[in-house]
């Protein structure tokens, strides 16, 4: 991978700068989603997957995983609401 020098970066015009700012904003929000998925998988895998004798997920495990994410998010929303109401 070739790396960019500071003079390369200084030569960027305003259009490109704006373009990069928009790109960063998009990547940032995508990255937030990705990190949430990492977190949820970490939590829900521990709770839903007992045996690792089989590389495939059982339908039970699959249901558990998607329920787990949804209940985690329900909890998250309820906590935020609860904190807002208690202010």
């Amino acid at each position: 991978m070739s790396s960019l020098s500071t003079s390369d970066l200084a030569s960027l015009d305003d259009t490109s700068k704006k373009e990069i700012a928009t790109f960063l904003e998009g990547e940032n929000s995508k990255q937030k989603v990705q990190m949430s998925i990492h977190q949820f998988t970490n939590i829900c895998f521990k709770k839903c997957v007992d045996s690792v004798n089989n590389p495939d997920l059982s339908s039970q495990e699959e249901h558990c995983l998607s329920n787990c994410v949804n209940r985690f998010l329900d909890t998250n929303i309820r906590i935020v609401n609860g904190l807002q109401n208690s202010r």
Partner: protein
Amino acid sequence: MGLSSIFGGGAPSQQKEATTSAKTTSNPIANELKNQIAQELAVANATELVNKISENCFEKCLTSPYSSRNDPCIDQCLAKYMRSWNVISKAYISRIQNASASGEI
């Protein structure tokens, strides 16, 4: 480079979008910058995935006093974790989509 190519292979559609959208610029320097950013993010994601899988599969496959290894278990656990990642990703993204369609967020 190695890590990001591993992650790129099994990455969800989002990650692929990131690398393709990085090529739509007219300015080659801006292009290069975007590519480098996308690359760094892919590495960060791969590192996170490797760490989480190591932690979870170590816990599931090995027991104290850790005198022997259990490679078949690790391999199956790895496959199972990746599948779980995909299930979670689908469930989370459809939840976000539903919430934004109904105006919740």
